[in-house]
């Protein structure tokens, strides 16, 4: 047990000191930002209404609805003003994004969908 506690990896900022043991490839992935900086996956699927190919976005790179919508609109070659962001929450309901505080949104969002403003 003690030998695990003494293992420290350079650059770990979140206080993890080597227990439980993490596969080294996963550690490397996290250091490169692949895990989004946390242990929970922050990559969610995003679809554009009418587009057959979905994308994925790392929510950890955003801190507000504005930056998120801006990035998503760009991803699909649309203007912010032309789209609305909706999301599916943990309960499976589809909701318009923006009503709840950002942190709450990030906790509950399962997938995203951009729809066109009619």
């Amino acid at each position: 047990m003690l030998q695990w506690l003494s293992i420290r990896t350079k650059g770990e900022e979140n206080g993890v000191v080597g227990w439980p043991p993490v596969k080294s490839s996963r550690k490397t992935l996290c250091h490169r930002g692949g895990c989004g900086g946390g242990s929970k996956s922050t990559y969610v699927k995003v679809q554009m209404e009418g587009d057959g190919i979905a994308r994925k976005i790392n929510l950890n790179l955003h801190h507000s609805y504005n930056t998120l919508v801006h990035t998503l609109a760009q991803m699909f070659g649309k203007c912010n003003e032309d789209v609305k962001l909706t999301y599916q929450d943990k309960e499976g309901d589809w909701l318009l994004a923006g009503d709840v505080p950002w942190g709450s949104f990030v906790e509950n969002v399962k997938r995203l969908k951009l729809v066109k403003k009619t």
Partner: protein
Amino acid sequence: MQNSNRTVYKSGCVGRSLDISRFNSYHELRRELGQMFGIEGLLEDPQRSGWQLVFVDRENDVLLLGDDPWEAFVNSVWYIKILSPEDVQQLGKHEVESYGQNSGEKVQRDLSGLPPSMGSFDF
């Protein structure tokens, strides 16, 4: 990984199988697929070539290859599809299809290789 073989489809071609655990990055995968299907160089620069690599995951969603961290992709990929610029256009025409349903219009979708239950994108 128990069974790391994944199927790759390209319309007009017979499907191929590759061992996904042999690769460590998207770049390696793109290069190998380009060679496998005789379209070297076209998959590494989709912006320029118009060719896209997509994959279907275990939730039956069609996703652009490359957004996920590599390991997450490896864990979720079910099969891969290579799309020519024409194929990509067809997928974009899904919009026409969904609005044109009542008019009886049928849009030819080249989805050979994708299972019949391929997901609907309407919610």
